[in-house]
């Protein structure tokens, strides 16, 4: 397994956001985490990325990263594309991408930058402009491109389709599938369950901070528990 999360627990003060969650992502797999707003999906992502202090065990490619600060987890190959794009607005497109390569010391950064710009022609056309002028879709591409610059083994995406038009959402899921074919494992948090289950091999459904159910994408698509989770049925 590439990522193994065991009994992860996260509290913000009185709020118990993540309650004993265990999940795994295999090398080269796409895994979706589904659930209603407030189910704890984003908190789970932040805890795995090291942006929130959680208890429990997180292993990446067999080594324990539970105590590592966020920056070292990036170097280990785990990168989170946070919810709401969160680009560096006063910096240019190119500078945003270069921040993504911050943990790298190798000589291939320039080559990877060229590859990312080739993949996203809209970004290439605006590489010298402040990122603040990009459209919502372009900002999401920039956030993903920036994460790619870290050369991740596992990319976590938190609600990447939020606020995008249907055409852009389709392009986004094509992109996710393409990245996966390159060998990057994907852990995807999505509200768009249909698209997520079409793209992912497996999924977990979260409810009130717990994993309610899990299974292959096909099983989950038929599982009434998924609909329940979104309709806010009471926890078992």
């Amino acid at each position, binding site marked *: 397994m590439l990522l193994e999360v065991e009994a992860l627990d996260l509290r913000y003060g009185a709020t118990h956001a993540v309650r004993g969650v265990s999940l795994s992502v295999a090398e080269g797999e796409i895994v979706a985490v589904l659930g209603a707003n407030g189910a704890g999906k984003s908190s789970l992502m932040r805890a795995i990325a090291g942006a929130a202090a959680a208890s429990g065990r997180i292993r990446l490619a067999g080594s324990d990263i539970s105590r590592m600060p966020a*920056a070292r987890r990036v170097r280990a190959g785990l990168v989170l594309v946070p919810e709401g794009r969160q680009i*560096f607005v006063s910096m240019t497109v190119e500078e945003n991408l270069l921040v993504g390569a911050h943990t790298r010391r190798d000589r291939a950064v320039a080559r990877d930058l060229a590859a990312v710009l*080739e993949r996203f022609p809209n970004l290439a056309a605006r590489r010298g402009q402040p990122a603040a002028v990009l459209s919502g879709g372009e900002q999401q591409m920039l956030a993903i491109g920036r994460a790619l610059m870290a050369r991740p083994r596992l990319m976590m995406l938190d609600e990447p389709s939020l606020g995008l038009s249907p055409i852009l959402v389709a392009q986004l899921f094509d992109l996710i599938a393409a990245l996966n074919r390159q060998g990057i494992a994907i852990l995807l948090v999505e509200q768009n369950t249909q698209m997520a289950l079409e793209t992912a091999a497996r999924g977990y459904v979260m409810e009130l901070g717990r994993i309610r159910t899990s299974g292959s994408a096909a099983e989950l698509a038929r599982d009434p528990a998924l609909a329940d989770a979104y309709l806010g049925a009471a926890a078992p």
Partner: protein
Amino acid sequence: MSGYLTGVLALLAINVIFAYGIFITAAAGQLNLGGAGFQAIGAYGCALLGLEAGLPPGPAIALAALLGGAVGFLISFPVLRTRGVYMVLATFAFAEVVAGVILNSERLGGSMGLILQDYVDIGIILPVAGGVVLFAFYLMSTRVGLAMRAIHDDEAVAELMGVHTRAVQVGCFALGGALAALSGALYALYYGFVEAQVFGPLLSIFVLLYVLIGGTQTAWGPLVGAAFFTLLPEGLRSLAAALGVEPELGRAIEESRFLIFGVIIVAMMILRPQGIVTRDLLERMLPRRRRGAGHG
């Protein structure tokens, strides 16, 4: 060169170094309103190293700057626990503590100040200032400079991208403290005299204004800001003299120059809240280098 012009240039060079000390932290998103405290540490440190340890100016300046860096490093830990306006207050309080310690220490001359035996002239100060400016431009062009700007924009996301935000912020406080202390050491040796009153709250406010009015987005900001603030009052003074107005009216203009100055500052804040020099401005002024090149 006239004595007056030399004096203005020396003050400008010292203010430029001081401004970069504050800029280094501001570029990474931290406002340091304790500039006067760091400059005082450099000035008094240099004075004591000369008077009591008998060090010549060169080593005294270097050690005083190191002392400022060490203090910056140490206070960064409590200061970085605060955010926003509380950080501004914490750094301000630090400067007040430094001033309080000096005023109450007989060894530091109390309110009487200290007279230095050594002297450095503009031949030393100008090259040092030039070196500091070049270093700041170099720093901002490195991956550390990029990380500083990322932290300025969004600390949490910078951390998610692998930037050790805390290490960068602590480093900025240490480096900024060292530069502010360096400017203090040069100040002490140029004027040959240090007194606590010089390093008061107004000085901290002014140097932060140099940086904020100049702009924190690029390394040009503090240079332009310090020049603006140092030369404008002198320019207003010269203007009154050059107009050859009645001595009384001339004095009135000279005295009201701070009023005019204040109005200009307020106007700047309204019209250019990002500072005089922004990346956008540079983009429009400089030839379009690298645009579209190197890919595709």
